[in-house]
């Protein structure tokens, strides 16, 4: 046998991996989560730090995009004001399916300390949220953890199925 010829029959050496379509698609989806740049307040600084070299989101396949058309996860990082609420909904609608939302920090979760007339009391009043990330502001490790939890959630979903209706659809 030639030196570089692969012996398919030996010790399971077939260059074939068997898997399901769901797993294959979700593997691709969960490892190329492009995030929409959505820093609204101080949480945005932590989000930027997570994307930068020390914490390095790129190794998860997460690259920040400036366009909602190219993004599939929206990290709502910061205080969502009532004036801005219609714009976050519009940007969410512009994202292509499938799409996910991480609500980062107390302000995006519940309005946080801004119990005032001008702040939306939780981003989930406007857009459906997949992951709520506590903290004020959450450390970059926490955002990484949230991203890995989101990857886990994506892996558990059916790939071919239309997006399950979430709240507020």
């Amino acid at each position: 046998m030639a030196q570089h010829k692969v012996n398919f029959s030996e010790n399971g050496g077939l260059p074939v991996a068997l898997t399901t379509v769901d797993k294959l698609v979700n593997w691709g989806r969960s490892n190329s989560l492009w995030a929409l740049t959505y820093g609204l307040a101080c949480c945005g600084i932590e989000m930027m730090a997570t994307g930068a070299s020390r914490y390095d989101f790129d190794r998860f396949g997460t690259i920040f995009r400036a366009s909602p058309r190219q993004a599939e996860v929206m990290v709502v990082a910061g205080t969502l004001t009532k004036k801005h609420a219609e714009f976050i909904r519009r940007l969410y609608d512009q994202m292509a399916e499938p799409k996910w939302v991480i609500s980062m920090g107390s302000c995006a979760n519940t309005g946080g300390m801004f119990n005032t007339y001008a702040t939306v009391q939780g981003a989930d009043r406007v857009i459906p949220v997949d992951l709520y990330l506590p903290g004020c502001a959450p450390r970059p490790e926490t955002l990484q953890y949230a991203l890995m939890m989101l990857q886990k959630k994506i892996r558990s979903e059916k790939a071919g199925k239309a997006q399950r209706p979430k709240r507020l659809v």
Partner: protein
Amino acid sequence: MMREYKNKENVQKKSYYTDRYWVAPRVPTFDPATDEEFNSVVASLKGKFSINEAYIQLKHLVIYINPEDNKAVLQYLHEELGYGRLMEMSAIDWLAKSGEFEIFYEMLNVDKAKRIRVKCYIKEDQAIESVQDIFRLANFAEREMFDMFGVKVNNHPFMKRILMPDDWQGYPLRKTYPLQGDEAASWYEVDKIFGKEARDIIGPEIRDSAMIDRYDSERFARLGHEVAFGSDVSEVKTDQGYQEDGGVFLVRKLHKDDTKTITDRDR
């Protein structure tokens, strides 16, 4: 869902606790004649405009003028007396006390390091003349005054809300405006995005910041013990890891038992 109606007419007159013997501290005021510069300013202004009141407080000269004179007085201070900077201007809400707004202009003379506060009273529906062609600062400041207090300004080139959205109802810095928003404010984003029909689906805002319920998985989560939205916390296994037990493709799962803790720092 209608907010319970509360009469806010006398909201400023109420206080929770009153000490019978407490005397409100007063900032001492002085006669303008005690300062040479301010004395000459008041004297030269008195020849042209009517000055209702003038005193020195915290090294500022405070003068009360008629609201119709505001532009002429500021022009005169700017061009003749050297008060070339308008540091700040806005309004004070005295509607509950006297049905009036107090408008103030904070002026600075850079050469002499002297400050003057020009004040006037206007009624709630009375408009005031814009000073934006003398001081550029007034352009934004008057828009903010309109946005926050509802004071209308005549001859402003772009009289529009500056901070709040254009279709906002009410004026947030008025003392009768509730901090957590009135009826229109609390439903603003829902009405605008989804329409009034969605109010029942989305529900009212939750404003009780002290409420915590660990078994309410719709609104609360514990880090490391996250569960799906709305599921029963008491029944499911809540301990979460970021990987499935078998690991994922190309990534081996980290088992805590396989790790080694290094105790010798000088290894």
